[in-house]
């Protein structure tokens, strides 16, 4: 499938690529292919009916919309967090740095329970928002909060190493050429972190799309309104409708895959255009 384009003295191409492809195939491609084949056993009409029911479509809107919102929040505040962690000194920095990985570590169900404890009308934070008539738990905002939470580490951890390795000479050069600080950030630093930022964004988005455990506690799960797509997949499976569940699963899968492919393609393209700027 793959051919080496450029010659190199480095060994292990066959071994590493062979092993990687084998491992990926066995553990990932084969199961996913299985899912696709399983869905193909359905007739087109059945498949279409399963994935286009108004209730399902409403759940796509929520799942995609909230994932997009969560990933965007993460892109902004995640880059900011990475920047602060790399560039500034302040007490407790190490602790904050370690804390960023928390959403990976805490089981999603626990996160869901913790978030709803905080943001429900009787919760630590929710009771104060209640005064302003802002409802977070059991609304779309609750879904966005949960999805922001679980995607938070992705952007930070993608951008952080790039910023850390960023050579200050470039900034100095830019500054000595008379660029303002803001221009340097915008024109020199931002392009350098953009590929990593995009990857982080895509991963946060993709992860949010499939999230189940944390969201169901805080979303309210009202059909047509606050019901996410993974919950519908579970509901279908509970009714022994595995094909219907798999069909919706495939839709989510294809969407996520296209997105990741797009982002990786974009990254490859920017790398190429920059011609190895770093």
């Amino acid at each position, binding site marked *: 499938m793959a051919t080496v384009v450029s010659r190199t003295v480095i060994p292990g191409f066959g071994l590493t690529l062979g092993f990687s492809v084998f491992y990926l195939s066995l553990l990932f491609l084969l199961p996913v292919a299985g899912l696709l084949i399983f869905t193909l056993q359905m007739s087109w009409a059945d498949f279409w009916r399963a994935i286009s029911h108004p209730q399902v479509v409403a759940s796509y809107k929520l799942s995609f919309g909230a994932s997009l919102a969560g990933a965007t929040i993460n892109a902004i505040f995640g880059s900011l967090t990475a920047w602060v962690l790399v560039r500034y000194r302040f007490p407790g920095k190490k602790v904050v740095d370690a804390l960023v990985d928390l959403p990976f570590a805490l089981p999603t169900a626990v996160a869901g329970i913790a978030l709803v404890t905080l943001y429900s009308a009787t919760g630590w934070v929710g009771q104060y928002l209640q005064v302003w008539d802002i409802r977070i738990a059991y609304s779309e905002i609750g879904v966005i909060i949960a999805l922001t939470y679980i995607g938070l580490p992705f952007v930070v951890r993608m951008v952080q190493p790039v910023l850390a390795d960023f050579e200050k000479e470039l900034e100095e050069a830019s500054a000595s050429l008379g660029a303002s600080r803001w221009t340097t950030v915008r024109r020199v630093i931002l392009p350098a972190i953009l590929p990593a930022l995009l990857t982080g964004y895509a991963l946060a988005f993709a992860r949010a799309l499939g999230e189940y455990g944390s969201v169901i506690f805080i979303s309210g799960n009202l*059909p047509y309104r606050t019901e996410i797509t993974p919950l519908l997949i579970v509901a279908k499976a*509970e009714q022994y409708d595995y094909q219907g569940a798999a069909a919706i699963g495939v839709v989510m899968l294809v969407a996520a895959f296209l997105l990741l492919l797009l982002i990786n393609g974009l990254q490859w393209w920017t790398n190429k255009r920059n011609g190895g700027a770093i």
Partner: protein
Amino acid sequence: MKISTLVKHLTLGTILAASSFIAVANTTILNVSYDPTREFYREYNQLFSKHWQAQGNTAPTVRQSHGGSGSQARSVIDGLDADVVTLALAYDIDALHNNGNLIPADWQSRLDKNSSPYTSTIVLLVRKGNPKNIKNWDDLVRPDVQVITPNPKTSGGARWNYLAAWGYALKEYGSEEKAYEFIEKLFKNVPVLDSGARGATNTFVQRGIGDVFIAWENEAILSVEQLGKGQFDIVVPSVSILAEPPVTVVDKNVDRKGTRKVAEAYLQHLYSDDAQHLAAKHYYRPSNPAVASQYASAFPKVNLFTIDEVFGGWTKAQQTHFNDGGVFDKVLESINKNR
């Protein structure tokens, strides 16, 4: 190479771990049950162990698995090695027959009382002092009342809730159309639709959402007694449904494993006086009338109808109301349209 030996050890470890689950002695049985029965079966297993040993047998080991009734049934269909299942509704057990023929079609007539050694009913849990003055099902469709119930699509318990309300409306207003309108109004008042019964309890009790919670009687009493003493009252509606959580031996599994004898004894003993008292202790209504009469004060008399009388059995009720495109889907659709 160190790594390869490590991998070898690990593979070996996996195989050993896997095989330890294959080699089960034939007095070890697995009881696959639903969420609210944990406390009951924990005590019952000790009771049964004593009984079984008193008959001159070796001590049995009962493994327990608990989860949502529907997903538990699905696991058994997909290969979870249950010797007995003790679930929330007959439909979930029917599924074991319909998908994979694990049990015969007439499973429910094999044990007394529709194979339901303990029963319950659907009641209304309200906040202390009943501030919204909720007396009966009719109050649940008032526009100023918020109702908490789990989603009938994913929760077996919630299907009982739905059918209880439907059955009431049908009796009170006399037609299917009226009953439909009633259910639609009721679900319009639902602000949170949890996927499971215990999740819904937490929403009502811990989060303070809603004015009334439709619950199984045993769950409602548990909430009043243990979760929030003095914070809730139980309102018994004029009419409700007889909730029968049935039990059965999974024939295909017990015959393969050679556990039929102990599995059958396990279920049979649920009808013994000791077990019936234990069920009452865990707020289930004993199916033995003699034992039940001793707890008459704990379980108020309700005018109960059965699912067979009103809905023609679970299979029919499921098809009409809860399957895709069924009545409940239509209810959701029209609520969405009129929002």
